[in-house]
């Protein structure tokens, strides 16, 4: 079981790398779906090992909200974006940004290393560093991507990363909190999606990285 979970963790990081570097918007969204499925799978494995109904419920929430509802919503709201036949604008070229992303993954392991001493559970040793790497890679994607939807996917990757760590280290948070957190992620997707559409309508572009009207002279 531990090994299977490690596989999920490895694939999870891989999807986060894809969110940083993939050039097609629709492909990025599909990667996000895959990432959410991996998160649900990991929650399921942990739930099976610890015999925790709670984690099964979390896996279910993730499946419904993140792997199905959010992508469907973005697909509905931003279909013109998703089918645009162009490459995503980046602040850095893909090779450099993937190299930096690899560096960030290493940093994530170093950041959580002092905490792992206290970890008795083998799952934490995988989920916490992978989750932290997901958070950092998501933040990096927001910084390096210049378009609206890829930036949103960066934020959602950060949340997924935090959840990936959370299912191992905070597995018995009250269920109400988990529900509220899932609801919160949903609102992020709705709000940012609608805002993107409005920007597209008013400004005529979703290249949010080049919007720079507001600054000091």
């Amino acid at each position, binding site marked *: 079981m531990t090994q299977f979970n490690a596989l999920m963790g490895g694939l999870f990081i891989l999807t986060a790398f894809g969110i940083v570097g993939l050039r097609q918007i629709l492909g990025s969204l599909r990667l996000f779906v895959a990432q959410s499925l991996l998160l649900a799978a990991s929650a399921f494995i942990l739930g099976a090992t610890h015999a925790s109904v709670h984690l099964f419920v979390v896996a279910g929430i993730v499946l419904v909200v993140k792997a199905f509802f959010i992508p469907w919503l973005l697909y509905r709201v931003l279909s013109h974006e998703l089918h645009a036949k162009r490459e995503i604008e980046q602040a850095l070229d893909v090779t450099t940004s993937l190299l930096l992303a690899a560096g960030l993954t290493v940093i994530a392991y170093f950041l959580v290393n002092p905490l792992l001493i206290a970890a008795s559970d083998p799952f934490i040793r995988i989920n916490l560093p992978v989750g932290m790497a997901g958070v950092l890679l998501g933040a990096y994607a927001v910084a390096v991507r210049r378009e609206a939807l890829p930036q949103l996917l960066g934020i959602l990757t950060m949340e997924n*990363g935090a959840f990936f760590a959370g299912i191992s280290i905070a597995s018995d948070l009250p269920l109400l909190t988990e529900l509220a957190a899932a609801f919160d992620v949903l609102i992020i997707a709705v709000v940012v999606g609608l*805002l993107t559409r409005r920007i597209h309508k008013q400004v005529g572009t979703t290249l949010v990285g080049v*919007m720079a009207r507001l600054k000091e002279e």
Partner: protein
Amino acid sequence: MALFVILLIPLLVAGLSMIPTKNAKVSARATILGAATVFVLSLFLALGTAPGKQVGVPAFTSWFSTDGLSLLVLLLVSFVGFTASLFSLGYVGRTVPENHQDRIRRYYRRFNLFLLSMLAVPLLSQIAMVWIAVELTTLLSVFLVGFENTPESLEAAWKYVVLTCMGAALALMGVLILYWGLFISGGGEFTWSLLKTASPKIPPVFLTTAFILFLVGFGTKAGLVPLHTWLPDAHSQAPSPICALLSGVETTTALYVILRFLPMVSGSPESALSTWLLVFGLISVGVSAFLLIQVKDYKRLFAYSTIEHMGIILVAAGLSSGTGYAGAVYLILAHALTKSFCFFSAGATLLVTKTREISSVRGLIRLSPVTGSSLMIGGLAIAGAPPFAVFLGEFSIIRAGLAQGQYGVIGALAFFIGIAFCGIMYQVNRMVFGKVSNPGEQLPLPMSCAATLIVAAVPVLLLGLFVPDSLYDLLRLAALSLGR
């Protein structure tokens, strides 16, 4: 029960604003009435508090409870919420065309939901729920920031939501690690009060990691440098009553969460963590002071001053002494009241002159005596001139620092405060006095806006000279709840 009622009222009014009536004045009046009721309830709660007395909801104490600090924040949010609702009546009535009643209703619905999320932050005691409430304050105010629907306001809204959501995800990591630490040390309810008692048993490395994630994550929301870039944009592009809420109390609620952490870490590895606070605070004060000098837009001027004040409060908290905490708490009070007043005056200036540029506004006091004099009072008060409350707060922080021998920190702090003072006063002076350059046709200030200026001016003018006993007790309790 009062806590539930406080949260229920904005929710009801938000629901009411969705009913399609012919005239949106109904939702405006309901909002004012609701916010006033919330303020009165909060006032009774806050001034009736006593040491060790916890106001909670029976059977829900592990979810909702309050102490000195949270009651202070609640009081400030509800007061600014009330004045902002009053200002909205005139401001929105003037800026949104008559035939767009549905837009006005949408504004009030969002206004109430935003107010609800901010009221929830101090009332909730489960840390995970507090995180969600802070995140909701962002998400429910995004479309208020972008309300004017111009390219500029949409850009501001975008930067606002992206950066603060990034911060929130980091903070979530901090919340989870904190929960893990609590679980290792024996577990229990994940509330502020339990963490305070359990913190000596939690391994220090957990507290340190969680604290730094909190500081960076919620610090983004409070506008700490270097993650402040969204703040001047959002706080200048939103409609003025929303600016008053954003700048006056939304930043305070984010800072409140960081300050809540202090009692847990003021144990063993104290020195290192308070250095973090001092460094972050000083950088914020310094950078914002120098950015203040070169602004061209008077709403951005006040926005940078918010970053400056957040930095000063952080420095005061970093002194980690009783007197430092007292200064921090007093400055929180002074900042929220004064900054909201400043944004009301800025909004009135915008209504009178229809421009945001400092260089196009001259001789405001001749154009509109009420607006001109309130901008002058606001400028003096926020820059920290005696005898206003901000001055007293800054002075007590500087004195606390000197008493502890932190000469380097306090020297730098005083220098930056001096620069910011000159920056604000130079610009405000040029706007208020001088020769009127373009005496075009002037619209008089709406009645409700003038009324708001008068209501909001009362605490600004009085607080530096006189603090009522019950408010003094509340401040003392709030400062106590910062220490261990």
